[in-house]
């Protein structure tokens, strides 16, 4: 203590300083706990120390100005908003976090919650799924704003889904990296030296810039990386002192944003691919995440028709019209077995086309297709891989590998095919097209005219009946499906005519549960400006990972018909446990333990209603289904989300 300083005991000073701090954060509507501490401070018998007293007590001056706005400066987070606008980011989904309060406040009061607009999510995993679905419809990233530690930890699985599904999103997280200036307690608990290390294995790029100028440049670079095929999630840690600091107007330069041209395959390789395809007797095109934009589908139709090639759509995106005569997805195994040339477009698992694997007690694997089949690959995944997580699947040797974006390469391939086609090859292609069309029409007739009729009046309701009833409601609308239908035995893809490039967006990518509802909301948000009628076929187990998503749909008034495929189980897992039980001759009677969602049944309609969403059901009698769906359609057309709970057959 230096000489002449007023006598303030250490105990009294600390008590007053703590109480003052508490009072500073206790705002109207603030936490009761903080208000309680503030109330205690009010009645404390000592006065707050002045600056001299504080200096005398701790021996060094306190200066925290580095984190506060300089007089005449613009808040750092306002510059960040300027960048988001330059990047054409329309929405930022968030679960609020103190380490992001600067940017949050700038979006509220500087951007006036317009471009970007904040979307409130009740879990970071849901927010990330919203960004995931949104990007696949809009073609551009959504922003995400999370706590740097606990928020990112909540979101991790959803990042992995986005990584596997090659979906861009711009994640911004807060941090307090400077130990000398960060607030003690929770903000320090939430601080990290390297907060994005946790997700580095499955994000394309991350950074933690050290200055405001570096921050705006990092955001711009991140967007560029995310939007360069293969797309992917990117993360920037924006330290609180950058958000809450300031810089004079004009001092920070917002970088120019430029579109990155996707990599095209080399023209000589495209000519060689064309030569092989035109010479083939049974060319087959297998496509997974081919459609990066809405332009892809028309190009793939043109290529397939030129070649008379069977197309097997693995449904990672809306790649090919569902009822085109060359769509041989339902005959995939047969056409692959007959193929002499296979072109793989943006395949995640070419090995699985060439080989089979039987999940039996003693697993077997072997070649599925003929020896000598020529394999051609165009895949942007070859341009960017990481080591740890194995989403790149088994290695498949091919005859011609083009590390390039398939969509960007299709125009060159189509031209090369046109140049290589002879009149004889064109005639052979026409013959193949007719044969493929006949075969698939016959199969479709059997599926719709025979298979769909079985269990038509059953309860639980059959997935064929559910799909047919839904089709009757949406077929005259400008509709889009924003979920995968494999768990409904693909009945929608058999019944419904998917021919517009926005009518389907694939699945989660990483098969991480908790994706469905959030992704559907994000996708429906992107469809909203086009006035489309959006349907989500929702799994019951998946929704229960983040049911708060329902609230976000209502709060932001996003029209969406969610049809709960309520089979009251994690059904895939029931089958797995069942299978192992039988292999071990122990039976399946206990397979329901840990796998079913019964006792009690979840009442999804009531769950929806609890968050302000109209809930219909549970629908048990198939005769009630049509009227329920028609009522739900009216709600969606009025601009609101709705839930129809349908107690369904397992698949």
């Amino acid at each position: 203590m230096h000489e002449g300083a007023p006598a303030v005991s250490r105990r009294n000073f600390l008590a007053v300083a703590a109480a003052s701090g508490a009072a500073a954060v206790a705002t109207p509507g603030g936490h009761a706990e903080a208000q309680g501490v503030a109330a205690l401070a009010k009645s404390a018998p000592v006065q707050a120390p002045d600056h001299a007293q504080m200096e005398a007590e701790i021996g060094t001056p306190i200066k925290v100005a580095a984190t506060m706005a300089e007089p005449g400066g613009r808040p750092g987070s306002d510059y960040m908003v300027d960048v988001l606008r330059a990047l054409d980011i329309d929405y930022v989904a968030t679960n609020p976090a103190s380490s992001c309060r600067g940017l949050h406040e700038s979006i509220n009061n500087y951007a006036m919650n317009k471009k970007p607009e904040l979307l409130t999510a009740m879990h970071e995993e849901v927010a990330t799924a919203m960004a995931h679905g949104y990007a696949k419809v809009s073609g551009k990233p959504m922003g995400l704003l999370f706590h740097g530690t606990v928020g990112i930890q909540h979101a991790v699985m959803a990042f992995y889904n986005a990584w596997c599904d090659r979906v861009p999103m711009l994640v911004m997280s807060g941090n307090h990296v400077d130990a000398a200036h960060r607030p003690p307690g929770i903000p320090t608990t939430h601080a990290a030296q390297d907060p994005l290390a946790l997700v580095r294995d499955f994000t394309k790029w991350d950074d933690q810039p050290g200055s405001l100028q570096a921050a705006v440049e990092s955001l711009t670079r991140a967007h560029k990386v995310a939007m360069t095929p293969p797309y992917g999630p990117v993360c920037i840690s924006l330290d609180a002192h950058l958000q809450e600091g300031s810089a004079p107007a004009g001092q920070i330069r917002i970088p120019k944003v430029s579109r990155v041209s996707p990599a095209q395959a080399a023209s000589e390789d495209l000519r060689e691919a064309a030569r092989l395809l035109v010479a083939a007797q049974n060319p087959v095109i297998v496509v997974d995440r081919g459609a990066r934009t809405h332009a892809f589908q028309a190009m793939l139709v043109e290529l397939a028709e030129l070649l008379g090639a069977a197309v097997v759509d693995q449904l990672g995106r809306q790649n090919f019209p569902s009822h085109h005569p060359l769509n041989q997805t339902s005959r995939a195994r047969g056409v692959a077995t007959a193929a002499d040339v296979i072109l793989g477009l943006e395949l995640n698992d070419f090995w699985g086309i060439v080989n089979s694997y039987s999940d039996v007690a003693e697993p077997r694997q072997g070649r599925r297709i003929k020896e000598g089949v020529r394999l051609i690959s165009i895949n942007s995944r070859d341009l960017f891989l990481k080591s740890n997580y194995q989403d790149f699947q088994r290695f498949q040797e091919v005859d011609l590998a083009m590390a390039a974006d398939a969509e960007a390469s299709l125009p060159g391939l189509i031209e090369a095919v046109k140049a290589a086609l002879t009149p004889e090859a064109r005639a052979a292609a026409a013959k193949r097209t007719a044969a493929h069309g006949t075969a698939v029409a016959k199969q479709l007739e059997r599926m719709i005219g025979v298979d769909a009729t079985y269990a038509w009046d059953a309860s639980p309701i059959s997935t064929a009946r559910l799909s047919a009833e839904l089709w009757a409601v949406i077929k005259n609308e400008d509709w889009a499906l924003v979920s995968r239908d494999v768990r409904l035995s693909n009945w929608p893809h058999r019944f419904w005519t998917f021919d517009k490039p926005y009518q389907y967006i694939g699945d989660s990518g990483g098969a991480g549960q908790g994706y469905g509802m959030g992704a559907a909301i994000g996708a429906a948000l992107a469809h909203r400006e086009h006035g489309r009628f959006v349907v989500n076929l929702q799994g019951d187990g998946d929704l229960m990972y983040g049911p708060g998503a329902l609230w976000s749909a209502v709060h932001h008034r996003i029209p969406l018909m969610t049809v709960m495929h309520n089979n009251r189980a994690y059904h895939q897992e029931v089958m797995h446990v069942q299978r192992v039980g039988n292999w071990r001759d122990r039976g399946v009677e206990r397979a329901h333990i840990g796998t079913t969602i019964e006792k009690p049944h979840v009442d999804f309609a009531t769950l929806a209603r609890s968050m302000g969403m109209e809930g219909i059901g549970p629908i048990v009698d198939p005769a009630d289904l049509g009227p329920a769906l028609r009522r739900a359609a009216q709600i969606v057309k009025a601009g609101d989300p709705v839930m129809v709970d349908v107690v369904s057959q397992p698949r």
Partner: protein
Amino acid sequence: MKRLVMALFAGAATLSAGLTSAHADAARGREVYTKVGCYQCHGFEGQGANTGPRIGPEPIDVEALKSFLRNASATAMPPYSEKLVSDGDVADIHAFLASVKKPPAAKDIPLLNNR
């Protein structure tokens, strides 16, 4: 696959006679069908799904069904030993599958005709 099915049917033909559905109990068969999890892949009515083919209402011969259940280890379906599903259970399951009401014809279902 075709060869496998042929082999299974051939095997079934050599099995001892006596497993018939003449005295089988369809109501009990439905209970067993549910209890041993057949419905998980084939549906509650045996209608089939992308996880397993249709097996009702006109099931394969009861001996063939039994043979398939016992020897299913070569397929995606898990095998059911005598310990897990007795011959009597198989007969009852078969009776249940045979009792499932035949579906209406597609032509009589408007939703399947106005696509």
